[in-house]
């Protein structure tokens, strides 16, 4: 299983890394570092899947066709990312020059806590009642080659359940399963924690860089406290942070533990620098959130909208407010469509 975990991690983090560089080149963002590319690339991957998956699901396309189209699109972004090798080398050089910045007690504690979390989760299981629906949705895609035609709990044909048709997150790990040849159940329960937990803390690492750009020691301390909070949180079955430990493969869990911190990070950037590239990244992440859960369609604009309203009032800027609405547009469009489908 170690080999499969390693292979999936290489595909996911390697792929998002290069796609992130491609996106950065298009948006003309330079000198942001290696982690930034992974986060931007992840948002891009999820947004692209949402863009491709929804129409293909509606057109009753097969899972094999989806895998083909999505893989081709991602390969193009990855190749374009590889083409940005000068940027990568520049960022890599800067990363190694600044490596000492990451050697603080705070970073060491954070690293140890993350290892402990991964070790514990790898050797334990949490039985999620809803997996019988979501994980089987991924299993059905791989085994029957059908996206969402089959009622996952029994395996019989049914009409679409309108609640989930816009947010088919399990198809993402079904797609990953195709590459590694493991059952989506194993991909979800055993491999996904190795992707989502580091990803979540990468986002917190970037947030730390934004708010403590001049204090490297505090960056490590911030990160270790953020990790500890995920490990010592009340309300195990309701609190968003706990989902990173209990169900890091469930769309809602990824939404609460990865996507909302990602949105926070982009909001920090837009507040600091009102550049179009930051707004586009925020919009792409909002679209990616729609893939994770129908809650993403509803809650992302609430979060972004509230923050943008507050910042627009402070900045006394209507343009800022309009840019925020623009970033929420994917969620607004899908939200209206969701309401149309559900009624």
């Amino acid at each position, binding site marked *: 299983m170690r080999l499969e975990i390693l292979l999936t991690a290489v595909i996911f983090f390697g792929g998002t890394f290069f796609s992130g560089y491609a996106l950065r080149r298009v948006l003309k963002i330079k000198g942001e570092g290696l982690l930034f590319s992974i986060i931007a690339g992840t948002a891009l991957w999820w947004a692209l899947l949402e863009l491709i998956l929804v129409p293909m699901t509606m057109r009753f396309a097969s899972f094999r066709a989806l895998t083909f189209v999505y893989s081709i699109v991602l390969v193009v972004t990855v190749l374009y990312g590889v083409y940005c090798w000068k940027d990568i080398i520049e960022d890599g050089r800067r990363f190694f020059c600044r490596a000492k910045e990451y050697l603080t007690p705070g970073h060491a504690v954070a690293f140890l806590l993350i290892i402990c979390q991964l070790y514990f989760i790898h050797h334990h299981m949490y039985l999620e009642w809803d997996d019988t629906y979501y994980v089987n949705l991924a*299993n059905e895609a791989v085994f029957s080659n059908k996206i969402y035609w089959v009622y996952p709990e029994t*395996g019989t*044909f049914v009409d679409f359940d309108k609640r989930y048709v816009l947010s088919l997150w399990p198809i993402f790990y079904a797609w990953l399963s195709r590459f590694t040849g493991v059952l989506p159940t*194993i991909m979800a329960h055993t491999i996904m924690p190795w992707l989502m937990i580091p990803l979540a803390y990468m986002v917190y690492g970037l947030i730390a860089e934004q708010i403590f750009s001049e204090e490297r020691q505090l960056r490590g301390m911030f990160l270790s406290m953020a990790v*500890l*909070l995920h490990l010592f949180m009340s*309300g195990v079955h309701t609190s*968003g942070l706990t989902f990173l430990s*209990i169900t890091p493969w469930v769309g809602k869990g990824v939404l609460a533990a990865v996507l909302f911190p990602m949105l926070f990070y982009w909001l920090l950037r837009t507040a600091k620098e009102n550049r179009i590239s930051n707004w586009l990244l925020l919009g792409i992440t909002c679209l990616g959130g729609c893939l994770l859960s129908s809650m993403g369609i509803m809650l992302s604009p609430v979060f972004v909208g509230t923050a943008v309203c507050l910042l627009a009032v402070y900045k006394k800027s209507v343009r800022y407010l309009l840019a925020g609405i623009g970033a929420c547009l994917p969620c607004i469009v899908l939200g209206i469509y969701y309401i149309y489908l559900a009624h």
Partner: protein
Amino acid sequence: MKDFFEIAKTDFMATFAGGWLFPLLLVMVLIIIWKEEEWHRKILAGILPAVLLAVYWCPLTGMAFMRLLGENVYWRILWLVPLGVTIPYGMCLLLKRLQGIWRQCAFLFLMVLLAFCGSSVLSTEWFEPSTNIYKLPQNVIDICEILPGNIHAMVSNRLMPYIRQCDPTITLAYGRNALSFNGMTEDLFDNQIMYLEAQKPEIDVDVLGPLVRDEGCTFLVFSLSRTYVGDWADYGYREYAVNDEFRVFVDEDYKEGQDTRKWED
């Protein structure tokens, strides 16, 4: 209005009860608003959580969200409060004033405080040691090793949520939606009678036998504790295997390797 506050309070307590994280959050919000000099950080890390909490408790916005999201998932609004940023950020603002060994000691103290304010998530209360790479109950794996693939089956409720995660080629007579049949007594359809009969400690084979045959179940998996009135052979089933938890019956007409999956509901 009373209902709204009851739901909001219940959900809020479910998220924050059993720890001191909410008071800690409030303290950190105040520290950020007081200490942070950069306004955009003050707004995002300090004021935004406070506003989102106000949105959660405000009946006007609350009832709108309850209608939009559903009453039973109103607690998800609390996911928007950026706890993972606000609490560490407030604590780091306190540490910012200190230097050297004092900062390290204070950091250690705050880490301990943070752990005491919450409760351990990685606890055996919620997790159990995994015995297989599927991370499913071992009895599910054991039954899947007994059952062939590509079959239509009726299985014990203990296996029902997990069995297709282990072997997706098995189709089931009913899923979790059948749990809603529990307690029904009148005007029952055949599938409801079938489910309810299969739940009884003493199964009347003369009732269940014809129904599972009509449903096209080639395999039946019952808990070992079940007893039977009647003979399964009368309805064309024979015992296939027994392990320490379950007894498996098979349709006598079933041939090894046959595909008996049922796609139509």
